[in-house]
């Protein structure tokens, strides 16, 4: 018994072909949208690429862009095919292409689903990448004279200003990093030498943060030095401390930013996937209906369309057998004439009592 059998009259077949032609063209547009979404995501990621330690997240926009382009091509071809399906004569042109086309479309639709699921699953990898990337950027903040790292200070300052964040997890990360280059430290001064000596690794650590951590919402001018010492500044109470610098860590800020973008993109891609599935189902029905019409011979008669000819289990079994037998092309075990003795022929001749010289020709 067929799966999802529906009977189509000639008029219904033609209507189905027209509707599918229109849907295929809409799918070309959604394919272009998919490509656009992938491009947008790529641009957004590349903006802050320097604070990410690995580029694995770029798989997501690349997948979206490739499937978007594939969608445009496949649905463009599908539109052409469906337009020709209104006429049984023109359908003959496409008869052999139809099955591979449907298999291709099925594979590509699964890629769209994979792209949508990737948007949601890449989160943990992104977090790890941001953690390591921000840590190394903070470490190289002071190296504005080293080629390859000279723009990290500007990038991190602009990041902290734009996303209103400070440090990796919080502002305290800056207290464990030397962010003032030795070029600007007076090594003859006793305070500097003492501070360097008191640190195990010889790093100049201070109880201060860069200016980009300063909050614009604070009612008092920004306190960048001795931020943890409430007695160092006049009336520097708990509330002042809370409002003085940005409280959020930049990793969290960037995670929120990218998660928002990828969730909206993922939702849109899922909707596009559902639409593509609908188009695929329609094309399958059209293909089976047209083939049945050709089999019946009368182009004006009713025909059946289905998704699968037999039930799911039988189709799976037959496909599995096909794949199994693909490997047995040149084996000779199935030849019925090999290894059968010809004793029965001799017995026939003797029973008829005919004097014919029996030439023994036992097969060797």
């Amino acid at each position, binding site marked *: 018994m067929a799966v999802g059998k529906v009977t189509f009259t000639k008029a219904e077949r033609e209507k189905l072909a027209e509707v599918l032609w229109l849907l295929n063209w809409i799918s070309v547009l959604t394919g272009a949208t998919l490509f656009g979404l992938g491009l947008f995501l790529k641009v957004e990621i590349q903006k802050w690429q320097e604070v990410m330690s690995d580029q694995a997240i770029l798989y997501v926009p690349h997948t979206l862009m490739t499937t978007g382009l594939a969608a445009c091509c496949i649905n463009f071809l599908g539109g052409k095919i469906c337009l020709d399906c209104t006429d049984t004569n023109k359908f003959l042109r496409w008869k052999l292409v139809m099955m591979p086309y449907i298999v291709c479309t099925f594979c590509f639709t699964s890629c769209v689903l994979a792209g949508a699921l990737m948007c949601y699953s890449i989160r943990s990898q992104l977090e790890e990448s941001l953690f390591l990337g921000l840590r190394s950027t903070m470490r190289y903040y002071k190296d*504005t*004279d080293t080629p390859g790292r*000279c723009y990290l*200070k*500007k990038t991190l*300052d*602009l990041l902290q*200003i734009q996303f209103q964040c400070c440090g990796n997890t919080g502002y305290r990360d800056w207290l464990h990093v030397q*962010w*003032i*280059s030795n*070029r*600007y*430290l*007076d090594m003859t*001064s006793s305070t500097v030498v003492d501070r360097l000596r008191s640190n195990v690794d010889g790093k100049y650590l201070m109880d201060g943060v*860069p*200016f*980009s951590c*300063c909050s*614009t*919402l604070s*009612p*008092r*001018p*920004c306190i*960048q030095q001795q931020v943890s010492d409430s007695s160092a*500044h*006049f*009336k520097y109470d708990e509330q002042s401390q809370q409002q003085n610098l940005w409280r959020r860590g930049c990793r969290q800020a960037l995670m929120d930013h990218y998660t928002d973008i990828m969730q909206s993109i993922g939702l849109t891609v899922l909707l596009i996937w559902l639409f593509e599935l609908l188009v695929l189902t329609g094309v399958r029905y059209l293909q089976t209906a047209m083939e049945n019409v050709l089999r019946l011979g009368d182009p004006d008669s009713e025909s059946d369309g289905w998704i699968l000819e037999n039930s799911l289990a039988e189709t799976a079994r037959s496909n599995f057998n096909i794949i199994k037998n693909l490997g047995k092309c040149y084996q000779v075990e199935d030849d019925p004439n090999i290894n059968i003795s010809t004793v029965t022929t001799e017995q026939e001749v003797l029973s008829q009592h005919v004097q014919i010289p029996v030439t023994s020709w036992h097969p060797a």
Partner: protein
Amino acid sequence: MVVMKMKFPFQKRVKLAQGLWLLSWGATMAGAMTFSLGCILKTELHRRAEVMDNSNIHIVPNTLMIVGLASLGINYFASKICQDALDAGRFPRWKTFLKPYFAISCFFTVLMLLAVIMSYAMKGSLESSLKIGLKNGIRFYKDTDTPGRCFQKQNIDRLQMQFQCCGNNDFKDWFEVQWISNRYLDFSSKEVKDRIKSNVDGRYLVDGVPFSCCNPSSPRPCIQYQITNNSAHYNYEYQTEELNIYLLGCREALVNYYMGLMNAIGAGVLSVFLLQGSVLVSLRFLQTSMDAVEGKENTEIETEGYLLEKGVKETMMEYLSPVLSFFLLTNQVEEGTTTPAPAAT
């Protein structure tokens, strides 16, 4: 003497009507675009309203919006008129409508040109408005506890960071203003007391700027305090240090931004003006050439079209005299009834 007489055979009239129909729809889109450009400019000006002293500059976007809306109406009627123009039965009903229509259309088209001229001419007004507004903003920077001024600090900080500028003319404006509130000054400290005593008005002035003046492109951590004191910082010379803080003044930065925006909008509006002018000229030619056909049996004859029947000055007097007589008439009525008025003044 007739201004710009041209011959119009039947085919040319038909082509003129068809071209005019397309042109009027293009001009409708252009009118909608003018309206949206006016809205964009108004939004941008409104965003920085806190650092502007007066809103005189808003006349430019307001005019653009009015002109945009008016041109939608003008072009709608133009398309309707040219649709009826070739039909000798339907065209006469527009006769009485056309004279005031042309007057109003010319007025709004000239207003469009005026808007573009104003956007260049009002640069001085914008600059003086920003000068006063920024001066107040910097003066009230410290008053985060005074109602009505509590957002000045936030606005100035965001402005300086976004436009990459510092102070009004330049960063030295911050040296002349007390931008640290008395609430955060320890009056028992000797240093604070000395500094306040050394100032004539008893203000706490520092040789420093707020953090929002810091330039992220600088290779060294930002030096905000004791900017002019070379010995206070290691390996520092403030005369040659260009990347430490922003050297551009916020007034200049904002004027450049708005003039750039208005130049771009002005170029677009100028092309819309040319399009609108061509619509009106074509409509006038179509109207005059169809007027000559009226009453004749053969509608496919060649006629003459012109722009103005009389000379420019005479036409203007013809249009303005009803307006002037309206004012003169009201004056006469007032003179007759209110004779004691001059004695009262």
